[in-house]
């Protein structure tokens, strides 16, 4: 077991390098990931935004946190897809028959998901700036926002790992991302929840996206964050731990 520990980070580094090459050799995936959030952002800001009553005049400031979560929900679909390919092409079997730390293969994909989502999120933020997004927030609130986005990416990535490991085809590997993609619509991401019917509102106010979006919005606008940030952290870390445990169980049972 000792040797495994010594080499774990080295093996993970090799796997990370491999998956990074995959990303930089298929930069079109970043385009695919960002194009629909950009379209939704344009649609909501320039078409629907004028009619949405949110209490401030800068709708894009209101909208951006939800769009960022949608971008990440888009991006993790590729984690499932790449895992599925590794599984189908026998690459996992090759790795598993070698004396390397088994979970290194998974961690490589997870770390790369963090990097590629960071790139997509940066692209979206830049475009939001062009469209008029402004934030009075200083370094610390921005760091907090980055931290929340990172945790959200990790928690969603581990869900994507479960989907990729259990999927039989590329279609089913990506299907779960669709559900995650819908969650921001039934939350405070686009409109305040207080106009929603009671049942929808109860769901919207108690699902993870609302607290995460509200926390980021408060941080970016230099407003008091209140409890939202703690609820958001509990959601992210909770989902991450549960999904990690399930993903590892599925991964190890495969041999």
């Amino acid at each position, binding site marked *: 077991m000792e040797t495994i520990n010594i080499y774990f980070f080295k093996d993970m580094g090799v796997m990370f390098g491999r998956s990074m090459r995959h990303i930089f050799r298929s930069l079109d995936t970043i385009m695919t990931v960002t194009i629909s959030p950009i379209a939704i952002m344009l649609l909501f800001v320039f078409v629907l935004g004028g009619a949405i009553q949110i209490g401030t005049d800068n709708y894009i400031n209101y909208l951006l946190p939800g769009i960022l979560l949608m971008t990440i929900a888009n991006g993790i679909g590729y984690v499932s897809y790449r895992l599925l390919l590794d599984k189908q092409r026998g690459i996992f079997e*090759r790795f598993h*028959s*070698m004396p390397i730390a088994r979970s290194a293969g998974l961690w490589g994909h997870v770390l790369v998901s963090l990097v590629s989502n960071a790139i997509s999120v940066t692209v979206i933020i830049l475009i939001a700036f062009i469209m008029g997004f402004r934030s009075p927030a200083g370094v610390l609130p921005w760091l907090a926002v980055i931290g929340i986005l990172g945790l959200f990416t990790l928690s969603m990535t581990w869900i994507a790992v479960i989907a990729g490991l259990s999927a039989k085809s590329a279609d089913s590997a990506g299907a779960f991302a669709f559900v995650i993609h819908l969650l921001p619509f039934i939350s405070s991401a686009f409109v305040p929840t207080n106009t929603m019917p009671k049942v929808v509102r109860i769901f919207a106010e108690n699902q993870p996206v609302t607290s995460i979006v509200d926390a980021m919005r408060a941080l970016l606008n230099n407003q008091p964050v209140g409890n939202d940030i703690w609820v958001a952290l509990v959601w992210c870390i909770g989902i991450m731990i549960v999904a990690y445990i399930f993903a590892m169980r599925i991964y190890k049972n495969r041999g």
Partner: protein
Amino acid sequence: MIQNEIAISVQKLTKSYKNVRVLEGVGFEVKTGSIFAMLGSNGAGKTTIVKILTTLLKHDRGTAIVNGFDVASNPEKVRQSISLTGQFAAVDEILTGRENLIMIAKLRHLKNPHKVADELLNRFVLTDAANRRVSTYSGGMRRRLDIAMSLVGKSPIVFLDEPTTGLDPEARIEVWNFIKELAGNGTTVFLTTQYLDEAEQLADRISILHKGTIIVNGTLAELKKLCPPAKIEYIEKQPTLEDIFLAVVAKKEEN
């Protein structure tokens, strides 16, 4: 030293998938430095045996010892002794041939991954294609790279699961030559195949797996004795289609 003479020893191996019995008491031994061919039709259980011996799958009962280590109780040591070329070329299509080899060399924690990669590229006639992405390779090139990747780190025991399935006749003969060369250097080769001539060409010992049990096991000479004694008959030897194909292709290359 039993460990030095017997590379693989399998006794009373059983394996079921749910209610389907795949292996029913399989037993055989493979001598160090020999080529052992397991012959059987599709679904006979060949790949299941390979997966158990390469620690990818757990068996139900019986014992399997590889390089002196029990696959059930000491899988880590087994993995250090073997390498696997699975049924489908387990190569990373987005990486180049050289990058694939370097990746495996790094995962095997070798001192000079680049040098190891260059040597293998040269030996497997892939130097010209070394910096091209594997997705552009032909079936034969992929298989060569796949086998080259299994030779990184010089494992004493190499498993080849149907190494020539799907290859054209020339590529097949190339692979055969590599396998012979490998065994000539003292490596133990465990080979599965559904082609009778492949076993005949290569193997020191052949065992025939049928419906989960080994029905015949011996050298080619021993297997031939199982048939009625040979009679002398004079027949015109017609060239096989393979002979014709190879002759025609060779002629074309000379021109």
